[in-house]
């Protein structure tokens, strides 16, 4: 499922799961606390009533059979003889008279009132409140838990009570206001009833209970309310989460949209950076600057290709017109020779152009391998000066050079190409009978070659473009050797050596080119 792989959906699902977990935890805890509170309260009330019933029962018996005098010092303290004797006459209804102030504890009118049942040794009911359910008659023990049986309950009593059979159980050990300490008779639930049953050592039992139907209904209502509230919170949470995630992911979507358009070829696309402060905003800014660089690079490549094609148009035109003219009619051999020569010149020009373009492409791609050796730069420059001497004489240009020996490391052939190129420019763009000054020196650990001419100079607005491809000072092709790539190649070679090349110029005064190379 593609939908569930999207970040938005995955975030939403995780977020939803966590929210459900938190709400479940909170809801269950809240319900349990409420439930426990209700039951604890009921259990406490049950205990209280057990005590009341116990005391009432005890009091009734005392009235019928007064205990021996407690200040009888002849007798050891303890239960009166025969009181817990199995053989003593069973207690009957006449022993149990609930006092009027205690009667409110067992409100027969209330649906959820408390009730009691006192059962004798032989399962005979000694006393019961009117609202006690008849189904509590439990000769076999309480049906719901099954655990508690008054006959099996005895062995669970603390040792001193287990020893009752030995007649040592002390009635006084029942605190006057409560059930035996460490009482082993926990309250239990039987259907909607909450009951506690105390089995006395006489095997009589006191059962106090309460119908909790209204409390349970209230608890159910609370549970429903909690569930409802949780669902509402979950709904709002999910909706809010969806909105928040969508909002957070919107920059990613706009990044994606821009990237799609760019990959489709529209390089002018930019991401709309609305939140520059956020991490995504910063990412978008970085991507935008990358896109801008890409666009510039593409535009340069496109311009370069267009320029290259443009440069090839003229030589191709020459070949086409020359051959078409020649073929128009029969001609003399000399005429054909002229045509072929013109075609050769055009082809040479194209070859120079193609070689220059390939050299530049290799430099651009970093594939040009320099053959580095240690050599005397001044010697290379001297040779280049000799090479261009005839060209200089043609234009009556004087070359003045000051070349102290200076050893550098580099590709001597490539650097000779640079020097020749710069010298040719200095002569070609010089005034008739002008001067070219060539100087080599060491400055701050660099070999610095300066070539200054006294030519027409380059206009200030053109200066930044002189190393650009196909730049020509006068927008036309002068001479077959001028491809407009010479300075670009010089720059590429010098930079491949880790050096720099700079041009300074003043119109009608002259141009100075400085090449700095590491020694």
């Amino acid at each position, binding site marked *: 499922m593609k939908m569930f792989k999207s970040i938005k959906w995955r975030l939403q699902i995780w977020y939803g799961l966590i929210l459900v977990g938190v709400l479940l935890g909170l809801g269950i805890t809240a319900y349990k606390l409420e439930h426990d509170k209700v039951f604890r309260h009921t259990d406490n009330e049950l205990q209280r009533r057990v005590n009341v019933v116990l005391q009432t029962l005890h009091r009734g018996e005392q009235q019928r059979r007064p205990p021996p005098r407690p200040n009888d010092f002849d007798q050891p303290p303890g239960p009166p003889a025969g009181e817990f004797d199995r053989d003593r006459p069973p207690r009957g209804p006449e022993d149990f008279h609930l006092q009027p102030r205690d009667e409110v504890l067992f409100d027969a009118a209330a649906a959820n009132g408390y009730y009691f049942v006192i059962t004798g040794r032989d399962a005979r009911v000694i006393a019961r409140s009117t609202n006690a359910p008849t189904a509590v008659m439990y000769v076999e023990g309480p049906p719901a838990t099954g655990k508690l049986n008054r006959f099996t309950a005895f062995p669970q009593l603390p040792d001193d009570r287990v020893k009752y059979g030995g007649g040592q159980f002390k009635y006084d050990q029942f605190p006057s206001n409560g059930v035996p300490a460490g009482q082993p008779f926990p309250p239990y639930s039987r259907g909607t009833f909450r009951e506690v049953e105390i089995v006395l050592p006489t095997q009589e039992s006191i059962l106090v209970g309460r119908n909790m139907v209204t409390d349970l209904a209230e608890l159910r209502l609370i549970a429903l309310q909690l569930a409802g509230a949780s669902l509402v919170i979950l709904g709002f949470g999910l909706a809010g989460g969806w909105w928040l995630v969508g909002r957070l992911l919107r920059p990613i979507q706009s990044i994606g949209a821009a990237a799609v358009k760019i990959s489709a070829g529209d390089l002018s696309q930019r991401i709309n950076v609305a939140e520059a402060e956020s991490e995504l905003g910063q990412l978008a800014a970085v991507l935008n600057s990358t896109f801008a660089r890409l666009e510039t690079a593409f535009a340069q490549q496109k311009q370069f290709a267009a320029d290259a094609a443009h440069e090839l148009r003229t030589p191709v035109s020459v070949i086409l017109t020359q051959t078409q*003219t020649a073929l128009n009619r029969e001609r003399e051999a000399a005429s054909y020779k002229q045509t072929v020569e013109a075609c050769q010149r*055009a082809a040479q020009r194209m070859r120079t152009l193609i070689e220059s373009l390939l050299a530049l492409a290799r430099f651009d791609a970093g594939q040009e391998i320099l053959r580095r050796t240690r050599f005397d730069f001044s010697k290379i420059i001297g040779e280049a000066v000799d090479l261009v001497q005839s060209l200089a004489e043609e234009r009556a240009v004087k070359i003045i050079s000051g070349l102290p020996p200076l050893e550098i490391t580099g590709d001597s052939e490539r650097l000779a190409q640079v020097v020749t190129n710069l010298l040719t420019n200095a002569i070609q763009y010089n005034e008739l009978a002008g001067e070219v000054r060539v100087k080599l020196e060491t400055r701050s650990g660099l070999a610095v070659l300066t070539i200054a001419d006294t030519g027409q100079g380059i206009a200030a607005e053109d200066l930044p473009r002189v190393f650009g491809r196909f730049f020509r000072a006068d*927008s*036309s092709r002068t001479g077959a050797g001028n491809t407009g790539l010479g300075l670009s190649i010089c720059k590429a070679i010098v930079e491949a050596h880790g050096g720099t090349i700079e041009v300074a110029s003043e119109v009608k005064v002259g141009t100075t080119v400085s090449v700095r190379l590491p020694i």
Partner: protein
Amino acid sequence: MRILVVEDEPDLLASLAQALREEGYAVDTADNGDDGLFNAEGTDYDAIVLDVMLPGLDGWEILKRLRKSKKTPVLMLTARDQTRDRVKGLDTGADDYVVKPFDLEELFARLRAIIRRSANQTTNVLEIGDVKIDTAARHVLFKDKPVELTAREYSLVAFMALHRGEVVTRTQLYEHLFDENESSLSNLLDVHVSNVRKKLGAEFIATRRGHGYCIE
């Protein structure tokens, strides 16, 4: 027909001039912008072939300055075939353009077309009485039979036919039939006129004494 070619690439200029001469045009050449403008302003050419990229004044500048004084049809030679360059050329006053590299045939056809348009002619075939002139094929029919004309005679007929109904002076004829390098004798024109009359009928070219010649 006299044409000026302004182009700085010497091999291209030479072959263009040769090819145009062989087509029967009188051709003047210039290899830089300044000479080109000087020639274009000084002579009534039937058309100018003008390269855009030139040393000195470039093609656009020559065109702009020329249009201040002359309506000579101009065919631009451009190495850029981008729309904005074409639009710029046509807006500046060029009559047509050809993108390098071009075929000579196309260049000739466009040249014929701008010359024809400048003389308000719409077709390649002109009919004058019994004479039919096909300027594309450079054929002349007299009474439906092909007539052999020399290149110069054909140029004379074609030029006079283009300016049908106008009186064409001898000076005009010299200017349009001979290029700047030809030192033509003044009676050479009379020889050509007389030869044409022999081939196409004496009444084809009328003489207006003291003014020049005319094709009715």
